[in-house]
């Protein structure tokens, strides 16, 4: 019987096959695409299974690869946490790979597909390695490979300047983040073993070390900000809404669905597993960053009219929600309340999984729409539900899930997070008691705004009539894309209605990290009811709610159709004025107008309405011009000044090289004098 970790290593190795296959000459594009993506789908699926087994089995395995430095070979480790993330990443990349077969075939005509295939596979393999890594070097190498390959994926269409810009921004931020993480490993390794040998770099050594608080804090802050830059936590999010839209949609599904999660993994791994003991304010910090990202993220998303950009901002929001869970868990841990910490942690991790699923689904849907309409601007779309019925259903499921509405998965994790919030009274610190419920309010606001946002998305894209100039040529997505989206949609539903089962499975993680479990099914109600704390406290039964709704729908439908009533379809009444045209519909800009009014001060908004009145009746303008530009304030607040400083410094540095040889000689002269004076 092959052990999960070996299984996963072999499957990771399997990702090389497509890469080699690409190099192999004389393969038709079609064959290439089918084979390579099937391979990656299969490998991902196997890894997902391995991860599942690892969590369920509750055992921890370690392996040392004969790679890396002789003194510091790659250590790999598969415990419950990594198993869980393997499962998430594996599942989504399986689904997306299935989807990609059709999607990439759609691109194959005029774009460099080989590049896409190579880096796609590298990217996924690197993500798995990140999760499996058990020493700093292996982790960093996989981490950076992940970043680099996704950089090339973002730069897929290098002809467009916006893609280049986005890719560049992304890569630079990713690299800076990576260096921060690296430094934090340096701190930990240095403290752990004094670095007189290479073994200090293994996570085991770091686990054993007891860090002095000062250094632990430094390490935590470094790693947290490093990971935050990758996860797109506000204010480190600027690259995200640039990079995700321009990447091919299957890639953006992966980037947004699982790549961001590797950062979450890193945070959990370092804080809970490696450092272990920490003061409460770390958790508070994470919580605050989470709340800010959640609210700001969804607000920015609400303002977008570029579909993929909007989804990208929603990733920011959801990362925020995940961080809320983790932050709460950290706070509870620091006050030594393991059971509650377990609840919060599982809430966060559960949302991680859910977000992977529905965000993947939404990006896949966006890809399908993009393929069909060649349009990213929602205000040019409309009524697609009649052209792409399947896609519309799946997309709707995605929308409901991400809006945290029952009976789908998004709601469950948010519900768990609320429960965690409501445990705040048991905290010793009065301040925490008081402030944490306010966080809950912000979370509620986030949820409601998300719902609003996705009413807008679905309504504008799929409902109403086509807004574009030329009539739509949209057609339904191909079979593989549909299968991919369907799988994702089904997972969303399952995670939504059977949370207790999944949480039982996840209990091993918290048992491993915190020594406490939720064992929800142990409650009086059994698997049907989710009772995270105890049945007295709160309970939710997905299946019953679903069954109830379906049943009532069915009954009413039947009752109302006993009497055959005829349905007559007629054009909409236009109140006798000028005929209704498609431009009269609400579009995304007009939909979000009230929110712009209310939350406008958070954005840098430029809005112009130019009227050209008729000579006769100024009241009835001939035409009017509307211009709206919404900018992220953080760019101006943080990044602009920073960039200016760098440019200034580089100019100063350039001044050294002024071409006069005398002055060069003076440099060396002065250097000598200086050093001699130092003696």
């Amino acid at each position, binding site marked *: 019987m092959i052990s999960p970790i070996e299984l996963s290593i072999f499957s990771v190795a399997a990702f090389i096959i497509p890469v080699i296959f690409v190099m192999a000459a004389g393969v038709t594009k079609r064959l290439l695409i089918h084979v390579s993506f099937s391979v990656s789908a299969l490998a991902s699926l196997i890894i997902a299974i391995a991860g599942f087994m690892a969590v369920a089995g509750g055992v921890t395995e370690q392996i040392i690869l004969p790679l890396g430095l002789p003194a510091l070979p790659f250590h790999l480790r598969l415990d419950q946490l990594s198993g869980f993330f393997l499962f998430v990443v594996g599942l989504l990349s399986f689904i997306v790979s299935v989807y990609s077969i059709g999607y990439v075939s759609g691109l194959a005509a005029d774009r460099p597909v080989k590049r896409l295939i190579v880096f796609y596979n590298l990217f996924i393999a690197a993500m798995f390695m990140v999760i499996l890594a058990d020493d700093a070097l292996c982790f960093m190498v996989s981490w950076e490979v992940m970043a680099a390959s996704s950089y090339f994926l973002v730069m897929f269409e290098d002809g467009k300047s916006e893609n280049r810009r986005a890719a560049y921004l992304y890569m630079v931020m990713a690299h800076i983040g990576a260096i921060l993480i690296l430094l934090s490993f340096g701190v930990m390794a240095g403290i752990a073993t004094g670095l007189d040998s290479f073994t200090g770099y293994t996570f085991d050594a770091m686990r054993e070390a007891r860090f002095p608080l000062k250094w632990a804090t430094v390490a935590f802050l470094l790693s947290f900000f490093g990971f935050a830059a990758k996860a797109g936590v506000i204010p480190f999010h600027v690259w995200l809404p640039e990079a995700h839209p321009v990447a091919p949609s299957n890639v953006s599904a992966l980037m947004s669905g699982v790549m961001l999660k590797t950062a979450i993994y890193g945070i959990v791994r370092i804080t809970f597993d490696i450092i272990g003991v920490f003061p409460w304010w770390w958790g508070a910090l994470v919580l605050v960053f989470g709340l800010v990202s959640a609210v700001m993220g969804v607000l920015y998303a609400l303002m977008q009219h570029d579909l993929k950009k909007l989804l990208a901002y929603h990733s920011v929001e959801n990362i925020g929600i995940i961080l809320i869970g983790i932050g709460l868990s950290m706070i509870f841990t620091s006050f030594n309340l393991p059971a509650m910490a377990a609840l919060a942690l599982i809430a966060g991790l559960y949302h991680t999984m859910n977000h992977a699923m529905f965000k993947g689904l939404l990006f896949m849907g966006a890809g399908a729409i993009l393929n069909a309409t060649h349009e990213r601007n929602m205000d040019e779309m409309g*009524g697609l539900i009649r052209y792409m019925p399947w896609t519309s259903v799946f997309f709707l499921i995605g929308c409901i899930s991400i809006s945290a509405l029952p009976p789908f998965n998004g*709601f469950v994790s948010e519900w768990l997070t609320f429960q965690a919030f409501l445990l705040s009274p048991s905290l010793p610190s009065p301040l925490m008691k008081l402030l944490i419920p306010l966080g809950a309010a912000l979370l509620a606001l986030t949820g409601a705004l998300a719902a609003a946002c996705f*009413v807008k998305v679905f309504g504008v894209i799929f409902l*109403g009539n086509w807004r574009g100039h030329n009539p739509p040529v949209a057609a339904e997505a191909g079979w593989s894309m549909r299968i991919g989206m369907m799988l994702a949609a089904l997972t969303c539903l399952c995670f939504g209605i059977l949370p207790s089962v999944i949480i039982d499975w996840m209990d091993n993680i918290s048992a491993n990290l915190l020594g406490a479990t939720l064992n929800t099914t142990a409650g009086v109600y059994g698997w049907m009811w989710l009772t995270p704390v105890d049945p007295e406290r709160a309970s939710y*039964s997905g299946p019953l709610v679903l069954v109830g709704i379906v*049943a009532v729908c069915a009954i009413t439908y039947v009752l109302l159709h006993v009497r055959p009533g005829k349905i007559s*379809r007629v054009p909409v009444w236009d109140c006798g004025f000028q005929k209704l045209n498609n431009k009269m519909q609400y579009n995304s800009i*007009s939909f979000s107008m009230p929110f712009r009014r209310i939350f406008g001060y958070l954005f840098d908004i430029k809005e112009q309405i130019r009227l050209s009145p008729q000579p006769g009746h100024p009241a009835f303008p001939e035409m009017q011009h509307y211009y709206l530009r919404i900018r992220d304030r953080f760019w101006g607040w943080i990044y602009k000044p920073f960039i200016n400083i760098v440019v200034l410094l580089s100019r100063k540095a350039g001044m050294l090289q002024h071409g006069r040889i005398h002055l060069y000689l003076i440099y060396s002269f002065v250097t000598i004098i200086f050093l001699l004076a130092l003696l």
Partner: protein
Amino acid sequence: MNPLHLIFTEILQVLIVLTVAPAFTGWVDMLKCWTQGRASAGVMQPYRNIAKLFVKDVVLAQNASWIFRFTPYFVFSTAVVAASVIPVISMNLFLAPSADIIVLIALFATARFFTALAGMDIGTAFGGMGSSREMMIASLAEPAILMSIFTVSLAGRSTSLLHIVQTFSGGVLVFRPSIVFAAIAFVLVVIAEAGRIPVDNPATHLELTMVHEAMILEYSGRHLALMEWGAMLRFFLFVTLGIACFLPWGIAATDNVVEIAAAVFLMLIKLAVIGGVVVLIETGLAKMRLFRLTEFLGAAFLMATLGVIAFFILE
């Protein structure tokens, strides 16, 4: 106690809710007419409307999609499910544990989600306008209502309604500032959620003011009936939710018939009174401008927050 009784009470309660909800709306309208010195159509008017709509044929817009047709059923069914969860007459409900307050709110949110989609389905300006406004109001109302509910559930150490009701109805009436704040907040939010004046005016089709009506403007026949009934249920359920949270006394704890009857009777009285209060508010206030709502709901949110703070500081 034996599950048959549970299921029986469950069904009974659902039926009661379904039947009483229109009457409650009717009652409110009637009181309103009286206060405004008009002759009222009586408590039964809503039933007549619904019945009439049920027998009418459906006229659909040409481009209406399945969403548009599915929504009424969905809205109605969510209301029914909610009705089966809130302890309106009895605490011994079969389905009660399947959803706590947060789930309830989320259920209503889902219904609203679909209503808003339906509003955008036809692609008229009105529908979109209604959806947009509705979602805006909701997104402001939801934090407030959750906060006020959190206050209650902090006090009751639970988010499941049953236990809240048990905890509160058990003890004698104690004056808890947190609960009072929460109650005020709750009232304000319910007014918003149920689309009453001063937030929305169910009686108007004036494009400047209408919100909920704008969304369902294109509905007709049985669809409209379901939507209307759903709206009434929604209003009713919010009120009963408030009752369960803030004045739960008298809700039947056991399943003997007398107690349940008493509970029903008590409930009717409470409803009557609350209806009066609502009418007073509605006639007292004028419909607000859309962007004044932020202040209104902000006030609600403030109240709720004060409730939480009061809970931690004063109790």
